[in-house]
Every structure is written in C-alpha cells, then in structure tokens.
C-alpha cells in the first residue's frame, strides 16, 4: 500500500450534521427570503392566506409537488432528465386504485403503485444506459406510453371511494399537521442523507458534473444512472399513493398538471439543468414557492386556466436564472 496518505479511521469525524445542509447557505437563504416575500404579499392581499387551514393546505400542495420533484432532482443532479414522472404517477395511481377498489388490501395497492413506478423508471434507465438514447427523448416516449396505458386501463372512467384508513395518507392529520407533510419531511431527510452522506450520492454529483471524468475516475456510471431513474420512478409511485389518498379518486388525467410544477420546483430550487449542482433541500423550497404561487392564484380568484401559463413562465424564468447563475455554456457565433 504505497500511497495511502491518511487512513479513514485515524481522523475523528467532526460535526456531521452541519454538512448535510452546508455549502449553499446563501442560495437557500435567498429562496427562503423569496418564500417570505410571496407569503407576505399574499397575506396583505388576502385575509384567508394566513389561516392555519390555508397554510397547511399550501404545505400539503407543496408536499405533492416535492414528492415528484425529489426523484427528478436526483436524475437532473446526475446529468439526466425525466419527463415521464407525472405520467408515471398517473399510471401508478390508476393501477393502485384498481387494486384497492377490487377489494384487495390497500397495502397491496400501495405496493402496486411503488412497483409500477419503479419498473417504469427502470425502463427509462435501460433506454438511457443500454440504448443510449438522449434522456429527454427516452423519457418523453415513456411519458406517452405510460399515459396511454393509464388511459387504456381506466377506459375513460374514474375509480373513486377508498377506505378511510388509506385516505388518511393524503388527508389525515397527526398532531395538527397533514400526513403528507410528514412524508415530505421523511423523503427530504432520506434523500438529503442519500445524496450528501453516501458514496453513491457523491458519485451522482460527480457524474452530473462531468460524466467523462467520472467514468475515467472508475465510477460505474451506468449502474448509477439506472439507480437514479429507478428512484425517480419510485418517487412517482409514492407521490401517486399520496395523491390518490388525497383526492379519493383516480382518473387518467390526474398527473399531467403536475409535470411543469415539478420541473419548475427543481430548477427554482437551484439544481442546475446541466447537472452536478443542486440539492434536495432547494427542491423543497422550490416546491413551496410553486405551491404558494398556485395557492395565491386560488385565493385571488384567478381562474385555474391561468395555471399552466403562469407555471410555464415560472419555468422559463427559472431556467434563465440558472443560466445566468451558472455561466452560460460556451458557444461561438
């Protein structure tokens, strides 16, 4: 062993926790400030905003966006993209609804959603690593395939009315806080520990920052890419369960309106579209900002039809801010 400069065990680990959220303090503070700003504006504009019920409602909305966006964050950190997250949610929710409605255990329904989500994610991963398709193309095709399967399965119908115990996952409260918010906290914690405090998480950042350098540093790139697409699928499955429990109904169009908000949440959260930079905590803040915007539109009686337009604008603004913040890619002419 000629060249090992220090042995891992010889060094005492200092404060480990601070590391989880370290590094991007200023950027996160900026986002918190933005949340406070939008919140204050809404509080001034509408009396209903600061009611406990409404604040919890915002958090519940944010949790749903976040659950989808968390998986997407991993994929984007790793230098990929996943356009299929919302369609994956739809199919997973529809299948789970079918299972539960047929009288089987809700646990089986949950398992179905998670399995469906992960399987679809694995197919994305295979298309990217094995067929070497550009990620946006592979996941775009997957979007329509999953959407098509969901349409077919539902046959234009709705499935609704689930056992109260299952619905509690979406609508229930514990100690006055909605259950999905706890779920958001758990996912935030686990995902943050995963990307910040595991070797695999470090490798995901490395691949996203420079895939060729990562490969030439001996990182098993394809396996890591497979993993992030599968995790993204799994998160779609989890989000599907929460969404299903909350609205107590499944239909084949349920996930689609969440795609743009989820992407926007990741980008507003400071994760770079070009990979290798960003955090899950940022995504939570991004999700809260989007939930605030959507909530504010409701409170101010702006018709729901405006939502795609506003989210589209927010998305483009977020991309451009990312561009300015990270320095644009070099290109002559």
């Amino acid at each position: 062993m000629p060249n090992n400069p220090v042995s891992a065990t010889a060094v005492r680990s200092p404060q480990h926790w601070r590391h989880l959220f370290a590094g991007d303090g200023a950027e996160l503070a900026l986002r918190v400030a933005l949340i406070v700003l939008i919140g204050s504006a809404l509080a001034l504009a509408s009396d209903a905003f600061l009611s406990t019920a409404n604040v919890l409602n915002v958090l519940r909305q944010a949790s749903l966006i976040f659950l989808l966006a968390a998986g997407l964050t991993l994929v984007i950190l790793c230098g990929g993209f996943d356009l299929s997250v919302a369609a994956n949610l739809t199919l997973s929710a529809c299948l789970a609804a079918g299972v539960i409605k047929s009288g089987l255990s809700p646990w089986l329904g949950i398992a179905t959603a998670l399995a469906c989500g992960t399987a679809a994610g694995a197919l994305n991963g295979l298309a990217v690593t094995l067929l070497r398709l550009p990620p946006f193309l592979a996941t775009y095709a997957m979007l329509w395939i999953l959407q098509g399967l969901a349409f077919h399965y539902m046959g234009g119908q709705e499935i609704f009315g689930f056992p109260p115990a299952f619905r509690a996952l979406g609508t229930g409260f514990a100690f006055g806080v909605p259950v999905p918010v706890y779920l958001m906290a758990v996912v935030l914690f686990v995902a943050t520990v995963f990307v910040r405090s595991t070797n695999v998480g470090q490798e995901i950042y490395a691949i996203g920052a420079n895939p060729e350098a990562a490969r030439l540093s001996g990182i098993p790139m394809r396996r890591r890419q497979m993993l992030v697409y599968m995790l993204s699928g799994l998160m779609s499955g989890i989000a599907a369960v929460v969404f299903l429990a909350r609205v107590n109904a499944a239909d084949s169009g349920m996930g689609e309106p969440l795609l743009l908000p989820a992407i926007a949440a990741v980008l507003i959260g400071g994760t770079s579209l070009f990979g290798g930079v960003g955090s899950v905590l940022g995504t939570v803040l991004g999700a809260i900002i989007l939930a605030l915007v959507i909530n504010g539109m409701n409170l101010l009686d702006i018709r729901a039809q405006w939502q795609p337009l506003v989210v589209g604008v927010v998305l483009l603004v977020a991309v451009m801010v990312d561009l300015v913040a990270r320095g644009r890619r070099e290109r002559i002419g």
Partner: protein
Amino acid sequence: MPAILPIGLLLVAGALVAVHGFASTRNVANLGLQASILLMLAMPMTLIIMSEGLDLSAGAVLSLCSVVMAEALAGGHGLASALAASVAVGLGFGLANGAMVSLLALPPFVVTLGTLGIAEGAALVVTEGNAVSGLGSGIASLYALDVFGLPFPVLVALATWLLTYVLLHYTRFGTYVFAIGGNRDALVLAGAPAWAYHIAIYAFGGLVSGVAALLLTGRMNAAHPTVAIGMEFDAIAAVVLGGTSFERGDGRLLGTVLGVATITVLRNALDLLGIESSLQVVSIGGLILLVIVIDRLRRSRREQVA
C-alpha cells in the same frame, strides 16, 4: 433507406388483409385527411430535430392558433384576417422558442416545455376552457373544397411538403439547417450568421402551425383549447421513424413523410379494429423502439466494418 419503409409496407399489407374496410374509398380519403395536419407539424419538426433541437410546444401552439382563428371568425372577422392572426401567434411562439434556444443556448426540450405551458394556458384563458364554435360556414366550406380532385387539406399539406423541400434543398436556410446540426462551428467560421438561421428554424415551425390551424379549425368548424396537445408526439415519432438523427444533422423529408403515413395507417387500422387511441400511442412507442434498435444494430455493424 430507413428501416421504416419495409415496416410501413408490412403494416399496410397487414391492414389490407386483416382490417375490414381499410381499403374502402371512404377510408382512404379519410386517411389523407388524418395525415394532412400531422404532415404539416412533422415537416418543420424534421428541420428542428436535424438542428439537434426539439419542439414539445408544437401541439399546444397549434391548439392556441386554432383558438385564436376561431375567436376571430366568431367575432365576425374575415377568414384572411383570422388566418393572419393565427399565423402571427404561431410565428411569435416560434421566434420565442428559437431565440431562447439559439441566443441563450438553453436546452430545447425545456424551453419548449415552458412555452407548451404558456400556449396551453393562453388557449385556456382565451376560451375559459370551452370549445369555440359559431364560426359561420366560410372555413368549413374551405375545408370541404376540392381542388383538381384533391381535398383542400391534402393540398395544403402537400404544399407544405413542397415548400419545406424547396427550403431544405434549394435555399441557404436549408443548407444551414444541415450545418447547424452537423457542424455549427463550420458555419460560424464560414461567416454566416448561424444564430439567425437557428432562430428561423423554429420560426418556420411556428408559422406552419399558424397555417395548420386552418385545417384543424375547419375540420370541426370549431376550436378547442387543448385538442392538438399530444399531436407533437406523433410528429416527433414520425420524424424519428423516418430516420432523422438527433445528433449529426442528418435528415430526410421523405422519411418523415413515410413516418407520417405509417403512423396514420397504424392509428386508422387500430381505430377500425376498435382499439382505442391510448393503446395506439403505446404501439407507436413500440414501433419507435423497434426502429431505433434496428438502426443501432445496422450502425454498429457498419462501424465494425469501417
């Protein structure tokens, strides 16, 4: 020749044998009508994909154009000014997409995803989510017009094909589409304003969407804010099936036309067999996969020889 030709021929043969009513005069005419709007979206999409781009907003922009046209007609304006309004909206979106892709070097799929949301939202806002009808008979009779035995929509689609062909092969614009996808630096070194041509590619797409709204609106004599969303999938699928490459600035308009024909035949045959639209999407996805795998196998064999 792209792998799509034998596959498409097999498909037609299969449909002729197995699908009752496929070869009827009525159905063949129907096929032409179904293909025409898709062809109009797929022609500029070919150029966009050749330039290493993508336009996910095409369907949403087409819907919006149709809504704008219908609102203008319903508001008592003439067909010409309605068309002008529609084309202006389409062109505006094309220019915006192109500017963000070309000048800011943003990834096309995210840019056009954002403009997809904006176009969809705008269409919903204008219509309050409802269909627009009461357009009078002008546009419907135009749609039903026969010119030299060809239905008006088919004629417009063929004209778009011809126009795109001329643009691609007989103008500097077309030459530079190849260059932007294949070796953009070479174009810059040759002193051409590559950025402007890059924007023009997307602008052309918007412009054609504006015209295609004429067919979409005429077909139903009404407009619906989200009716064409998803049509960009068929257009992208047709281009990919036709053998246009995402990476090297290689493209074939004829391939795209074959792709459009294949998708139209597939959808029509499945319709006649009573298989719903959702599974048709899945089958198109499967077809793309098949073509890509065949393409990869052929290419890797060629690389081994080299």
